[in-house]
C-alpha cells in the first residue's frame, strides 16, 4: 500500500493534455478525482509513469443548459456537483438522485462524473440513468474530437472505445420527450455500497399509454446494457401493474449477471425484475425523480 513514483503534469488546456497523452501513450493516465486511480496505484494494479491532471482545465468544470444541445455536464463535475446542480434538479432530478446514492459523501465530493464513466465499471451508478436519458459523450483527442452516444461507449469491464490520447470532456443530456425517469439502486447497505443491481428507466406516457420506454441496467452484464426486449414489450401499451411486472420478467431474462460476493446470478436477475417494475412505476407516476 504505497503510492509508486510518477511524474505529474497539470496542463492548462485540453489540447495540451491530449498532446501529453499522445506522447506517453499507455504509460500515462488521466487524473480527475482519483478516487479509483489512487487506490489501484497503491495496490500495484496500475503503475503509470505520468499522471495528467485535469484540474487546471477550467472548461471541464460546470453544468449548464445550452440551447440546442441540452444539459451539458463538464467531465470534471463531482458527484456532489451533480447532486447540487440547480439545472439538473429542475430538469432531471433523477440524475441528481443517482449521484446522491453513490458511494459516500467523501467520495462524492471528489469523484467525478467523467471518471465514473471512463472507468467503465459494470456497477457504476451514473451510466444507466444517463443512457436512459439518451446522453452523449464528447471525446477530445490530439487530432480532433468526436461525439457518440454513451450507450456505445462501453466495450467491457474497465474497457471502452476511448483512445489513449483522448479525454472525455463533457456529457450531454439532450432535450427530452420523456415524461419521467428514475434510477433505482439496490445495494447491501444504505451508504458506501456498490450496486448489486441498478435499474434506470425513462418513459414517455400519454393518456395512460407508454408511448416510449428506455430501460438501462447496471451491474448485471459486462457493460451497462439496455433491456431492449422489455422496452419493445411495453411500447404502445396501456400501463397496468401486470404489464410492468411483465417488463420486469423480460428484463431479468435479458441480462447476464455473474455470481460474486455481493450476490448470486439468480438473485441479481430477480432483483432486475423487481426494480424494473418499481422504477417504471415510479417514473410513470412521479416524473423525473
Amino acid at each position, binding site marked *: 500500500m504505497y503510492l509508486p513514483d510518477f511524474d505529474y503534469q497539470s496542463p492548462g488546456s485540453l489540447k495540451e493534455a491530449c498532446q501529453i497523452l499522445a506522447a506517453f501513450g499507455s504509460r500515462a493516465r488521466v487524473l480527475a478525482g482519483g478516487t479509483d486511480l489512487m487506490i489501484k496505484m497503491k495496490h500495484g494494479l496500475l503503475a503509470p509513469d505520468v499522471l495528467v491532471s485535469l484540474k487546471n482545465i477550467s472548461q471541464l468544470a460546470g453544468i449548464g443548459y445550452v440551447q440546442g444541445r441540452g444539459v451539458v455536464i463538464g467531465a470534471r463535475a463531482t458527484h456532489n456537483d451533480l447532486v447540487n446542480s440547480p439545472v439538473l434538479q429542475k430538469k432531471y432530478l433523477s440524475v441528481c438522485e443517482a449521484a446522491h446514492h453513490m458511494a459516500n459523501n467523501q467520495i462524492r465530493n471528489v469523484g467525478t462524473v467523467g471518471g465514473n464513466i471512463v472507468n467503465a465499471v459494470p456497477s457504476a451508478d451514473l451510466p444507466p440513468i444517463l443512457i436512459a436519458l439518451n446522453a452523449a459523450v464528447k471525446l477530445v483527442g490530439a487530432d480532433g474530437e468526436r461525439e457518440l452516444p454513451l450507450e456505445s461507449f462501453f466495450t467491457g469491464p474497465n474497457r471502452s472505445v476511448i483512445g489513449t490520447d483522448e479525454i472525455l470532456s463533457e456529457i450531454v443530456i439532450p432535450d427530452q420527450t420523456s415524461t419521467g425517469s428514475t434510477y433505482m439502486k439496490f445495494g447491501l447497505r444504505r451508504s*458506501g*455500497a456498490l450496486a448489486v443491481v441498478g435499474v434506470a428507466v425513462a418513459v414517455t406516457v400519454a393518456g395512460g399509454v407508454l408511448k416510449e420506454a428506455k430501460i438501462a441496467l447496471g451491474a448485471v452484464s459486462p457493460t451497462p446494457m439496455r433491456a431492449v426486449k422489455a422496452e419493445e414489450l411495453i411500447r404502445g401499451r396501456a400501463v397496468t401493474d401486470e404489464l410492468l411486472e411483465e417488463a420486469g420478467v423480460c428484463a431479468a431474462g435479458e441480462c447476464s449477471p455473474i455470481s460474486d460476493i455481493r450476490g448470486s446470478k439468480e*438473485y441479481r436477475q430477480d432483483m432486475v425484475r423487481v426494480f424494473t417494475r418499481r422504477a417504471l412505476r415510479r417514473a410513470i407516476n412521479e416524473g423525473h425523480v
Partner: protein
Amino acid sequence: MNENYSVIGKSVPKMDGRVKVTGQAKYTGDLKFPNMLVGKILTSPHAHARIISIDTSKAEKLPGVKAVITHRDVPSLKYGISPARWDENIFCIDKVRFVGDKVAAVAALDEETVYRALKLIRVEYEVLPAVFDPVEAIREGAPRIHDEYPMNINTEIHQNFGDVEKAFAEAHHVRTDLFMGQRTYQCPIEPHSAISIWEGGKLTVYSSTQSPHYHQYYIAREFGLKMGDVRVIKTFVGGGFGGKLEPTGLEFAGAALSRITGRPVKMFYDRHEMFAHNRGRHRQIMEVTTGVDKNGKILGLHANFIMDGGAYTSLGIASAYYAGAMLTLTYDFENYKFDMIRAYTNLPACGAQRGHGAPQPRYALEAHLDMVARDLGIDPLELRLRNARQPNTITPNEFKVNSCELTACIEKARELSGWKQKKGNLPSGRGIGLAVGSFVSGAGYPIYRTNLPQAAAIIKVHEDGSAATLYTGATDIGQGSDTVLCQMAAEAMGYFYENMKIVSADTETTPHDFGAYASRQTLMSGSAVKQAGEEVKQQLLEMAGEMMELPPGELDCREGIVFSKYSPEATRTFAEVAREFFVQKGPLVGRGSYTPPKLGGKFKGAPVGTSPAYSFAAQISEVEIDGETGQIDVKEVWDVHDCGMVINPALLRGQVHGALFMGMGESVWEEVVFDKNGRILNGNLGEYRMPTAVDMPKITSELVESYEPAAPWGVKEVGEGATIPTMGCFSNAIYDAMGVRVYSLPLSYEKVWRALKEKKEMESGLKSAAGRIYDKC
C-alpha cells in the same frame, strides 16, 4: 442519580475528549523518534506450504534497507496468548499455515523502500493441500496443519452437568435445531501499530494494545528478558474489541529489528493485513437441543458445537469454553451438556471479539427458543420470563450469580417496545423479536496462571493538594476507563473529578493490571482504585484531625471539603490538609489492589466463564422486511440492561450503542469471505460491510435498578453484554415479520429472499398438491 455520591453516577466529560476531537491525541502511528526505521512483515501467499528456502540477499542489498530477518534471526520459542497451546513462531520455520502467515521482515529508512525490499525476498514454497472447513478438517485423511495435533483438533470439550438424557426422556417436547455462524473481524478504526526501541539491555515498546501486561509478559519470555527490562507503553488506541489483546507479531519483529539495527523501528498493519492477522470471531456450527415441559420450562439443554479456529490457537481455547459456558447464565435449568471441537484450518487464526465465544451460540439458543415457544404456542417473551434466572442462584456449571434483574429487564423492554400491542398485530412485513444475554464483569482468572492480583492502583496527591494523579495499569482503548476510574478515585477520596490527572497503561510507571478484555476494568480496576482513594482519604482525615483538633472518626471529606459530621461549620479544604500532610509527612499516596475470590467448580475448564458478577440484558428489535428483495430495515431497537450501579451514564450509553452497532453488523451484513485458495476476498471497508451511520436505527438504551454486592459501589459490565443478544433478536424479528427462519449468519438480504422464495414454492407446491387431490375427488 443517587445523591449519596458526588462524582460517580454523573456524565462528566471524557478525560481525553478534547485532545481526540481536536486531533491532538497521538496514536502509535503518529509517533516519531530520531533515526526511526520503518518495518514491515512479509507474509505467505499460500494457505499451506512447506518453506524450501528463503533468499534475502537481494533485499539486503537494496539501498536504504537496514535489516532483513527470518526465523534464523529470532528466537524459535513458540508463543501464543493461551499457555496450553503455544503454537506460533515469530516467523514460520518449516511451514506456512494460512495466507498471511509471517515469513520475514524488513527494516528500512522509509516506507517505500520497505515495500520494495519485501518484493525482493525470494521464498521457495512446496504447496501442500489445504483445508478451510472445520468439519472437513477433522475428517480422516484431511491435511494435517500442526504435527502435534492429530485430526486438526485444537481443543475438545465434553462437559456434562446433571442428566440431560433423563431430562429429554421426561420432557413434554424436545427440539433440535442446527445453526451456522460466520467469520467476522473487529475492524477497529486504528490499524495495529508498534514502535520498538531496544537500547542496551532494555526494550521499550509503544503499542496500540489492549493489555500492556500480556505484551510485556510474552515479549520478555520470547527474548529471555527480565520483565523489568521490557517496558510497554500504550498510546491512545483507536479501538480493539478483542483483536489487540495479544501480541500481534509487530512487537516481536520490531524488537528483533531494533536489536539488530540499534534504532527505533515502527511497524504497522494496513487494513488488509489487519484482516489477515485477524483474531476475530470464530465461525461456529451449532446444534442445539432443548427439552421443555408443557409450560415451556427448560428441563435440559445440549449444545453440540464445532468451531473454525483458523491456523493457530490465539485465544481460541477460551473462546471454545466460553461458547458453551455462557449459555447457562440467563435461564434456570439443571441439566446441561456441552460438546465442542475447535478445529485448526488453513485460515487466519480466530480469537476474542466483543462478547468472546458467546454471541453466536446465544443467537442459536435464542432463535431456537423462539421455535420452541412456537411449537408450544407460548409467547416467546413469556417463555423467557418463565425461565429467567433469579438473583443469588448458581448455574449448573457452578457460576455464582449474585445480582440478576433479568426478569425486570424483559418486563421493561416489553413495556418500552409496546410488545403486547405489537406482537401478532404488526402489518405484513413488520416484525418484532426478543433475545436476552449475559456477560462476565471480568474473567475470574487471568489468561496465564499467576497469583498476581487482577488490578492495582496508586493515587498520588500533588504537594499543594491542587491535583491528584491516578496511576493505573487499566487500559483505555476508547471505552473511557480513564474517565470512569478518575471518577471513582475522586469519589473515594472526597475530591473533584476536574482536578484528577491520570497516568495509565505504562508497565514502568503504573502498577500492574491485566488490561481491557472480558469487560473487567470498571469492576476489577475500579476496586483497586476505590481502595487507593480510601487510603488517601483515611490519611487525609487523620491529618485534618490533628489540624482541627478533632478525632478523625468524626470527620469526612466530600467534594474537596473536610468537615465534621457533627459540627458542619468546622471545615478545612482538601488542598490545605493535603499540603500540610506533605510538609509534615512527605507524599500523600494511596494504594489499592484487587484479587477476586476463588470462583467456580473443579471440573475441566471450570474457570472459563467465572466472574465476580454478571450483567444481564434484554433486547427487542422491530424490523421491516421487503418481501421481494429480502432487504432488512431495522426500525428500532430497545436495550434494557442490568449492569449494576452506573458510574458514567453517557459512557454507558456509548457502550450500548457501540455494542449494538457491532451486533447489528454481524447480524445482517458482516462476513469475511475467502476464495477457494484461502485468500480473503473482502479485506477492506468497502466490501466488508459494517453498518454506516445512516444504517443505524433509533436506539433506546434503558436500565433497571440493580446493585452488585461483589463490586465497588455495586457496578457491573456493559461493554460486551449488549452485543450478545443482538443476532438472536434480529433473527426472531425477521421470523415474526415473514414466517421464515434463516439458519445461518449473517441474516443477509439474499438469504432472507431465498428463504421467502423457498417458502412460497413450498406453499404453492402444497397448494398444487392439494389441488391435484381435489381434482381426484
